[in-house]
């Protein structure tokens, strides 16, 4: 993704789609800060995606072939729950939710590092992959990067608050 440099000239807004109330001038100034708007939105979107992917995958695997790799599937399910928690708390953005979000992002980071190391050291336990095995290599290492961005974002929010 490109790093924008916040241009200051006002943009023409030929056809504002669904702007309730008075039309805000464009471009939109640096947003006030919760994960509910601004760059946090992108994080929430990616978290939502991983929440869906991890829990759906775990659901299918546990339902159809639990015996093949129980450890891997249970870890997938756990990862799914952590992603759901992180998605919701990042989206809500209240002080309490933010604290829970910090916790779930931390659990996630520890999880991806621990499970990643475990899966490399002991591949026999992981005949089938989880979201976190190989440090998230099956998902382009996004699971490894995501909690870092999440924690950085949350830290920035709490500094401004």
């Amino acid at each position: 993704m490109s790093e924008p440099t916040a241009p200051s000239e006002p943009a023409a807004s030929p056809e504002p789609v669904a702007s309730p109330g008075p039309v805000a001038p464009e471009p939109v100034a640096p947003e006030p800060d919760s994960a509910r708007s601004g760059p946090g939105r992108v994080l929430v979107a990616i978290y939502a995606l991983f929440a869906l992917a991890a829990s759906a995958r775990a659901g299918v695997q546990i339902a159809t072939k639990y015996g093949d790799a129980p450890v891997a599937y249970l870890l997938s399910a756990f990862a799914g729950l952590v992603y759901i928690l992180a998605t919701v708390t990042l989206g809500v953005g209240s002080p309490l939710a933010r604290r829970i979000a910090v916790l779930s992002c931390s659990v996630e980071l520890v999880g991806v590092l621990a499970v990643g190391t475990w899966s490399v050291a002991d591949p026999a336990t992981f005949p089938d992959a989880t979201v976190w095995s190989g440090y998230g290599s099956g998902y382009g290492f996004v699971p490894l990067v995501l909690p870092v961005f999440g924690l950085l974002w949350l830290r920035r929010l709490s500094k401004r608050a």
Partner: protein
Amino acid sequence: MNGVVPTTVIVAGLVLAGYAGVTTARNRRMEVDLLVALGVLEVLVLVLVGLIVAKLAGGARPAGLGTLIGYLIAMPVVPVAAGFWGLLERSRWGPAVIVVAGLVAAVLVVRLHQIWPVIHV
């Protein structure tokens, strides 16, 4: 099935991601152009899903049927969700979410091919 439709979906997703990325970089919110582009991607995805459902109806079965069905449900949701997100998030970060959606659409097609290689990419 030949690979035209899946390839088109991948290219469309990547082009959409690029265009939405430029929109974000220029600090513009989502306008009608991005919404139309999302609509085009949605139609292409639905064509792909239709082709796969036709193959399933014809009696062919992949190894991971449950996973495949999950993909068939999830794939059409992505552009729609991104569209609503762009409508609600009236800043440059709406298009940034659309960048993610375009990339995800492309990745999903590639993974779909890994689940069921009969659909050539």
